[in-house]
């Protein structure tokens, strides 16, 4: 069998986002539909499926970050070090004012 690979996305319930579930290999779209149904829908785990031939997927996997712009990254950057530096610069914290005013 010459198989085509189809990526399967599933939605748990109406309104939820479609999420990648896995893939099926099948001779054509008709087979893929049945296989996706059986593999990703028969336990009542899905409310809808999307079936996408893998060769229709436009993949992008080259990302540049030459200047280390950490603040743009999803993992962000640690504030701990910055806070320590800021505290040293500012000197000891002022005493809390006791209110005679």
């Amino acid at each position: 069998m010459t198989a085509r690979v189809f990526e399967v996305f599933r939605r748990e319930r109406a309104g939820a986002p479609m999420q990648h579930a896995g893939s099926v290999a099948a001779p054509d779209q008709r087979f893929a539909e049945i296989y996706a149904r059986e593999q990703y829908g028969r336990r009542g785990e899905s409310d809808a499926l999307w079936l996408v031939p893998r060769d229709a997927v436009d993949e992008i996997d080259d990302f540049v970050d030459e200047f280390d712009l950490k603040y743009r990254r999803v993992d962000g950057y640690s504030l701990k070090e910055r806070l320590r530096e800021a505290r040293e610069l500012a000197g000891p914290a002022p005493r809390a004012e006791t209110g005679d005013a």
Partner: protein
Amino acid sequence: MRERVDLLLELADDELLLGWRNSEWTGIAPFLEEDVAFSSIAQNEIGHARALYELAARELGTDPDTLAFDRSPDEYRSAPLVELRRLEWARTIARHWLYETADAIRLETLRASDDPELAGIAAKMDREEVYHRIHAEMWVDRLLGSGEGRPRLGEALDELWPYALGVLDDDLRPELARRVEGKLGRALPAVETIGRGRHGADLTDLLDEMTSVRRTAPAGARW
């Protein structure tokens, strides 16, 4: 006219035994996705059998497991088609498609029955059988469109045709021939029907295997 309970047992036995036979492909189907799909179809058939045995058991004052496992081979009312051991893919697909096509005709008549319980269960089964038919038909189309598959499927269909007729009552057989011939675009051989009421050695072997756990389990074991 036969009793309602006999009709229920015919259906239940067909579904149980075909489910069992189809499950013999689990782990060794032509490829992984098909293995999952065909096993799932087998599970559906066995689920249908359970629902039908439950109805029959209520009428007979027994329980579904007793009906499924504790009868002697000659008490099974299944059509010989579902009993055959066919561990070869073209024959498996031929039987699957012939059975699903016959079953569709049978379910259509049951859905129109005046018996609401029978009509209800037929409608419920049919909602799953739709996918079995799609599965069977896509395989038939695929094999018919292949140089190797076409003759192999054709040979298997000719061989199984007398058995396929035996799934249905007399009056429904012409409709089966019409649908099968329509799809194949050729006439099927004129044959004598191999119908219910006779069983071969394949059934005895199947029942031996199917009931082995139940027979060896200690009395009172619960599942």
